[in-house]
């Protein structure tokens, strides 16, 4: 591009429009993170459902892969940051939404693990015990308090950043994924924990895996052009 070139008013406006288009087209999300988290949540939810449904165990808590997925995510983030040549106006805001979501998920998992244990301890300290009676045999057993339908809470949390991203970027797959997540949430209020696990797996597929694959396709297409 030559600096000396004289522009007419129309050429100036065309140049502005062309450059704005060029800048916008540079921000194709690679979809790697969405594919990673979609696969992880889908795998964990569906395997957990299968374990409960067909009475088998894989020998460890499958949801631990969510923690393990943090390692590749760090590498992906570092690599993307390294290769980034420009920062979009909305990227700071979107990154903040997903960061807060990540913190909230881990805070909720902490809550799921600590609150039942703390409740049990408090009941014991007050000199009481929660018992559950089998209505058929009449036998009484110790009942450890738990968070009822806790997978439903995860579904609501999944929907928040997904729907926000879908609405913010007018990205229909994530918009639909977010809406579907609320449908799964309502459904999970009426189903047993086993099915809630399955719905979590499906949420992983529709919220992130499918949109991630679409983003990936667009990214690769944009790269080859």
């Amino acid at each position: 591009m030559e600096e000396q070139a004289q522009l007419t008013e129309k050429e100036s406006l065309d140049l502005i429009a062309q450059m704005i288009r060029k800048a916008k087209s540079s921000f194709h999300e690679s979809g790697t993170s969405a594919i990673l988290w979609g696969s992880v949540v889908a795998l964990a939810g569906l395997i957990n459902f299968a374990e409960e449904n067909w009475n088998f165990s894989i020998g460890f808590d499958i949801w631990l892969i969510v923690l393990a997925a943090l390692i590749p995510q760090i590498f992906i983030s570092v690599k993307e940051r390294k290769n980034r040549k420009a920062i979009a106006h909305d990227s700071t805001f979107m990154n903040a939404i997903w960061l807060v979501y990540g913190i909230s998920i881990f805070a909720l998992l902490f809550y799921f693990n600590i609150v039942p244990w703390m409740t049990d301890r408090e009941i014991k300290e007050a000199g009481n015990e929660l018992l559950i009676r089998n209505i058929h045999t009449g036998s009484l057993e110790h009942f450890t308090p738990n968070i009822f339908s806790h997978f439903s809470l995860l579904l609501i949390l999944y929907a928040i950043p997904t729907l926000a991203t879908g609405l913010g970027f007018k990205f229909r797959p994530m918009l639909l994924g977010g809406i579907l997540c609320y449908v799964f949430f309502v459904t999970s209020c009426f189903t047993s924990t086993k099915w809630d696990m399955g719905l979590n797996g499906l949420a992983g597929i529709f919220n992130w895996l499918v949109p991630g694959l679409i983003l990936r396709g667009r990214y690769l297409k944009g790269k080859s052009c």
Partner: protein
Amino acid sequence: MFKDLDPILHSQLRLAVMSLLISVKEAEFTFLKEKTNATAGNLSVQIQKLKEAGYIDVVKKFKDNYPQTICKVTSAGVKAFEKYVKNLQTYLVK
């Protein structure tokens, strides 16, 4: 002919750079070079002129031991760009 048009902005490469920078939060020199297809020397000169006019901020730092130049449009730059586009539109209406 273009009496009301800002002479700093009314040049092909500087206008291209400003249009790119107005669309992003910040951009590296290599990004601007890639999008404008300008030579590094010419681009450096025009970036310097925009900086001297107070339209952009230029920060030089190191990334992986390589020099990195980051450009960002200032609020004065945004105002000047908006005024430039407004003036252009009045020309088109005439």
